[in-house]
């Protein structure tokens, strides 16, 4: 609970200017009561206990380096504010106060508390200098918003009446941008150092150290955000906010930075120019943050900054304040207008932004109005102080919030990018798969077309020539060979172009061929095969063609060589094998041919073909027993079950 205690002693002093009653939680109620009593009595009395309020003084305007002429002096009641005519431009005044030696002067360290001495003060006691607040020649120190605590060495206090000379260096109200910085001296409090020092410390913490910390924070955070916004043009509002923060830090620096390397007037101009920049940044920030952008603002606001400077320079040193106040009012209005515009823009769309921004802007606006009033009406210094510190605090809060939003947006963007990457990878994989399928299909199509072309060529060229041989040769053997060659070619073409053949269809084809051939040759045929329901699966074109050849060869053998009258053909599907048994009742293979079975019988080629299909072809024969040919093919290789 440090706040109320900050003001305890000074408030008592300033009670006449700021007559508000506040709860005083500290033990300094006693001091207050004393001060009230002092106020009622109107003068410091030797027999009242410390602290004493010293508010009666004689004052005289002086020139630098010239001794004061006390004949010109007049009596004033402190606090005393300078006006436009007295003590004149860039004036200096000496206040002389008297007090009797306090009773405890010898035993206790005394101090003089000065609430406000603008711009700075030198103090001397009984003609001996005891305190130099700051520079009294240009560049004059700017200590208007600082409190002074002057230690009064007990040795310098004379018994009886003592004389306090306070030299104040200041400026006429019109020479400065704000009444807060117009020359003047507040009432003084003389008291024990032990009593006044803590209050002074607390006040210094508020008016100097807090602004220092805030300025540093604002500059750091503002710089960071400016860089962020600069490099991410979509978030240009961040850059403007950064400028706003840095600008505010500069304004705030007036509270703690007392010595500038140039004249007071130049500092005043600089501050007002910074105020223009801050307004520009604030308005632009609000517009951009609401997602709006106006070209005329982009041009108008910087021009306004220039205009501010120009008008102030044109107005001259003696009319600074009226012009500054005018600008101040205008800038405040601009900012308020922008804030209202922003709230109206955002309200229907982004309620999530509103909960923070609406109260923030309200407080900010209140602070600005307060400061405007404080500048104009010269309200108590602490009001102006708060009006500058509160917006700074709010700026820090809002800045952190913006950074958080930015971080969150960055995070979701990262996440979005990661998701996009995954999707792209998936799509790429899909495309590759499709492409591979397409390529396969294409290869298949091309192969198919090529096969058809080869087949057509074979039929047209080779087929036609063989056919001519078949029908023009006088030699029966040659025409038979040519006919066989033609059949072979046809089968080859079928193997080349053929699709898988259903086993049931293959059995039908074989039966028709075998039975009609045997019938034509006068051999009684007996065909056995599983009924269609029991024959699943398909034969590859190659297996079909090879089996057809084997069967054809076997039947040819029966017709040509066996002399059989009967021939039975059995097709058996068993234990994963396809078995074909061709049995005749002919002569069998002569013993003389045994061992070289293939002489004219094509046995070797039959066996070779069976082998090609991973099967086997067995020939059992004996003279007088007929011949049995067993062809066995493994089904799993050549019959694909669908």
């Amino acid at each position: 609970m440090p706040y109320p205690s900050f003001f305890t002693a000074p408030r008592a002093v300033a009670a006449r200017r700021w007559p508000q009653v506040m709860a005083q939680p500290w033990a300094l109620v006693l001091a207050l009561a004393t001060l009230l009593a002092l106020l009622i009595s109107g003068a410091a009395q030797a027999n009242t206990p410390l602290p004493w309020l010293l508010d009666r003084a004689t004052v005289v305007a002086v020139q630098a380096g010239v001794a004061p002429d006390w004949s010109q002096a007049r009596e004033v009641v402190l606090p005393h504010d300078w006006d436009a005519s007295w003590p004149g431009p860039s004036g200096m005044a000496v206040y002389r106060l008297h007090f009797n030696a306090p009773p405890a002067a010898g035993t206790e360290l005394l101090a003089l508390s000065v609430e406000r001495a603008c711009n700075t003060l030198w103090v001397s006691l009984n003609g001996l200098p005891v305190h130099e607040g700051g520079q009294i020649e240009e560049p004059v120190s700017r200590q208007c918003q600082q409190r002074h605590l002057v230690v009064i060495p007990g040795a310098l206090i004379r018994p009886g009446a003592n004389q306090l000379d306070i030299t104040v260096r200041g400026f006429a109200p019109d020479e400065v941008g704000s009444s807060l910085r117009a020359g003047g001296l507040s009432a003084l409090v003389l008291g024990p150092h032990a009593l006044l020092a803590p209050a002074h410390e607390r006040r210094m913490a508020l008016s100097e150290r807090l602004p220092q910390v805030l300025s540093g924070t604002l500059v750091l955070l503002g710089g960071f955000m400016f860089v962020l916004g600069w490099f991410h043009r979509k978030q240009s509002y961040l850059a403007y906010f950064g400028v706003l923060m840095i600008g505010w830090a500069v304004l705030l620096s007036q509270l703690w930075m007392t010595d500038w390397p140039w004249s007071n007037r130049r500092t005043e101009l600089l501050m007002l120019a910074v105020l223009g920049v801050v307004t520009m940044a604030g308005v632009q920030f609000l517009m951009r943050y609401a997602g709006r952008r106006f070209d005329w603002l982009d041009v108008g606001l910087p021009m306004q900054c220039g205009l501010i400077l120009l008008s102030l320079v044109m107005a001259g040193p003696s009319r600074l304040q009226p012009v500054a106040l005018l600008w101040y009012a205008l800038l405040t209005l601009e900012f308020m207008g922008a804030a209202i515009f922003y709230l109206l823009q955002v309200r229907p769309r982004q309620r999530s932004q509103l909960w923070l921004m609406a109260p923030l802007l309200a407080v900010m606006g209140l602070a600005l109005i307060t400061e405007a009033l404080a500048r104009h009406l010269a309200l108590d210094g602490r009001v102006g102080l708060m009006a500058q510190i509160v917006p700074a605090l709010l700026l820090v809060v809002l800045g952190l919030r913006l950074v958080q939003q930015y971080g969150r947006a960055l995070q979701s963007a990262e996440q979005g990018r990661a998701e996009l990457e995954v999707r792209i990878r998936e799509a790429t994989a899909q495309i590759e798969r499709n492409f591979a399928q397409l390529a396969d299909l294409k290869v298949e199509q091309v192969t198919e077309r090529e096969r058809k072309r080869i087949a057509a060529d074979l039929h047209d060229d080779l087929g036609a020539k063989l056919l001519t041989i078949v029908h023009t040769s006088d030699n029966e053997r040659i025409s038979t060979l040519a006919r066989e060659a033609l059949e072979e070619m046809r089968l080859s073409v079928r193997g080349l172009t053929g699709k898988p053949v259903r086993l049931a269809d293959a059995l039908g084809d074989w039966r028709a061929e075998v039975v009609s051939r045997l019938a034509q040759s006068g051999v009684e045929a007996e065909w056995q095969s599983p009924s269609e329901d029991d024959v699943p699966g398909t034969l590859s074109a190659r297996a079909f063609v090879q089996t057809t050849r084997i069967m054809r060869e076997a039947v040819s053998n029966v017709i040509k060589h066996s002399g059989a009258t009967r021939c039975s053909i059995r097709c058996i599907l068993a234990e994963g094998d396809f078995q074909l048994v061709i049995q005749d009742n002919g002569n069998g293979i002569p013993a003389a041919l045994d061992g070289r079975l293939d002489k004219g019988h094509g046995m070797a080629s039959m066996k070779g073909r069976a082998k090609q299909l991973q099967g086997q072809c067995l020939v059992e024969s004996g003279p007088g027993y007929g011949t049995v040919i067993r062809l066995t093919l493994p089904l799993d290789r050549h019959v694909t079950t669908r």
Partner: protein
Amino acid sequence: MNNILLLEDLHEIRAWLKSLVLQVFPTARITECSRVQDALAHVSSGEKFDLGLIDLGLPDGSGTDVVAALRDAQPDAQSVVVTIHDDDEHLFPALQAGAYGYILKEQSRELITEQLTRISAGEPPLSPSIARKVIKYFASQTLPVASNMPEVSLTERESEVLLRVAKGFTLPEIGVQLGLSRHTIADYVKQIYRKLNVSSRAEAALEAQRLGLFRR
């Protein structure tokens, strides 16, 4: 069989076929062509033909077109495909176009004369693979029958014959199995070929209608 159209591009084979035809039909007048265009010109000029022996693979096109043209011009004329191709992929379109049978060129003179005699007597051949294709064709005939199109479907008996042929039974065997004469079976086969042709034409017409070639 007095007027016979013989379309064959190979000179030797044509001569051989001609001698073969003359052996079967000694009095026939044979018009020889070696190109599709020539044959089409003969057909469209209004010449009467009783029989057409038509090769499929010709230098300037497919004999199937001639089969169709002859069918259109003279429905009574019989077209027989004489070819080196035995696969149904080549034969089936010709049969659909109206051919009544086919002869494989490389067969022996005796076999071909016999087949020719049979075909001209109304006993066209039918192989298992062709039979299967016909079965499949009619099974897939789910065309909506247009009002002006005759509905073509196989009778039960015709289907029965087709199924048996597909299983590899010869026509005489089927005759025995069904207790029918050889001629009756031959009639069924002829019927099947005719229906295949009619249905194919209806299908073609429907297809044309669907494509908007006939605007009503």
